């Protein structure tokens, strides 16, 4: 292929991927100008014929193309995703979750990539995982209830603290603060001895043992290291680097942890992505999650249908669900809304608000017994009425 021919390919109005494939295919071959011209012509006409026509009802096609294979999916598949025993919702429940744009998925999980110097070494990857995995106070020492003096005594194990790279002083400072802030329990006092690694918690009221046991429960369960929402972290080696998989998700806080690669780390919580990374990232996340959910079930749906769905969900600047609260919920017709749910309420509200039904949709026309308006509507879209 000559540089001139390459120039010709660059100037064509083909998608970038097609151009690249064409160049790669022709790179080693020796072809005459006539042949080249014909190739370009054929590629162009092939490309034009595969493009969707203007005014095509792509929504209906997408709905059918996703819906039909969707019926083949197993209704309830709660099984292990094969990734380090972390349970992830898959199959139809997960697909519904994505389309419904739930605020929180039923099994939030993150894939945390590490920066090269951390990802190459197992021990350093483990260190990062300790900064992320929520660890309760009882993992760092012995907690005993002293009935006689009405107090809860914590003996911190310095060896464990050393191993998990957290100074004793930090635990002494965070534990009482977190009980107050995170667990909303304030009826206690504490004193500590950093050298000995001992913290004593005393309930404010010494009347009953109930307070003491309640306090002990808070002391045991308070999270002193890691990020509160992330219950479990698993370190795995994949294609030469260590990757962390988590149960629970908190994108914003994980990005602040040292050693985390802020370019590749991702979560399956789409709402969180849209808040931290923006609407375009959310669109990508919807496509990625939907495609991987379908492919995992062995169902092949063309990515263009899913892209259309994702585009519609992200059209208004925030993620909207496919359903009556989201992109389908803005139906204007009173009768069509009344046909769906809480008929009387809808009719009553419409009457109070003096609403008018234009009878433009399918449902309303069926209700009043008229022929429905059918077609793509492209004539109305293109032709401008005279006068």
């Amino acid at each position, binding site marked *: 292929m000559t540089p001139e021919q390459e120039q010709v390919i660059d100037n064509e109005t083909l*998608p*970038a*991927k*097609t*151009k*690249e494939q064409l160049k790669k295919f022709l790179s080693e071959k020796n072809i005459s100008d006539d042949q080249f011209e014909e190739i370009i012509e054929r590629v162009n006409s092939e490309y034009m014929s595969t493009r969707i026509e203007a005014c095509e009802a792509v929504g209906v096609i997408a709905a059918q193309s996703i819906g039909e294979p969707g019926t083949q999916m197993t209704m309830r598949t709660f099984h292990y995703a094969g990734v380090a025993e972390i349970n992830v919702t898959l199959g139809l429940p997960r697909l519904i979750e994505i389309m419904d744009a739930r605020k929180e998925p039923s099994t939030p999980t993150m894939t945390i990539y590490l920066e090269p110097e951390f990802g190459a070494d197992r021990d350093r990857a483990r260190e990062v995982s300790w900064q992320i995995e929520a660890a309760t106070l009882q993992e760092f020492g012995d907690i005993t209830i002293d009935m006689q003096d009405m107090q809860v005594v914590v003996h911190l194990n310095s060896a464990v603290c050393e191993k998990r790279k957290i100074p004793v002083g930090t635990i002494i400072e965070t534990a009482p603060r977190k009980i107050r802030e995170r667990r909303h329990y304030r009826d206690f006092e504490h004193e500590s001895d950093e050298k000995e690694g001992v913290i004593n918690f005393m309930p404010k009221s010494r009347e009953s043992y109930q307070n003491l046991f309640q306090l002990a429960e808070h002391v045991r369960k308070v999270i002193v290291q890691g990020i509160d929402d992330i219950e479990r972290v698993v370190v795995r080696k994949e294609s030469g680097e260590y990757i962390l998989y988590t149960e629970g998700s908190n994108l*914003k806080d994980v*990005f*602040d942890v040292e050693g985390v690669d*802020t*370019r*590749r780390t*991702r979560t399956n919580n789409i709402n969180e*992505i849209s808040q*931290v*990374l*923006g*609407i*375009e*990232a959310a669109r*990508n*996340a919807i*496509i*990625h999650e939907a495609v991987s959910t379908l492919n995992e079930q062995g169902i092949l749906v063309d*990515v*263009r249908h899913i*892209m259309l769905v994702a*585009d519609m969900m*992200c*059209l*208004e*600047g*925030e993620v909207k669900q496919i359903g009556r609260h989201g992109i389908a919920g803005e139906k204007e017709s009173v009768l069509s809304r009344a046909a769906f749910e809480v008929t009387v309420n809808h009719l009553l509200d419409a009457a109070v608000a003096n609403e008018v039904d234009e009878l433009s949709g399918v449902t309303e026309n069926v209700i009043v017994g008229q022929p429905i308006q059918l077609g793509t509507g492209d004539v109305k879209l293109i032709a401008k009425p005279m006068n």
Partner: protein
Amino acid sequence: MSTKLNVLEHVMVPDHKIMSEEEVGTLFSTYKITSEHLPKIYHDEPAVKIIGAKAGDVVRTIRTSHTAGIAESYRLVVKRPKK
């Protein structure tokens, strides 16, 4: 927000660029549309804040597409509605 996080560098975030008035004009005339036909993006989005776009600007995003390789799309910056 963390100091080291640059939203635009994340693999899931495409490049965002503010379009000049001229570019917006050609965009509208080629597709015969007005600004209200464009998809929206909120003004307080992390990516929008970084490039410094204001409400009313049009942002061009250069996505890596599954089908076309590279695809451009456009979003109108709007104020986030109050809840």
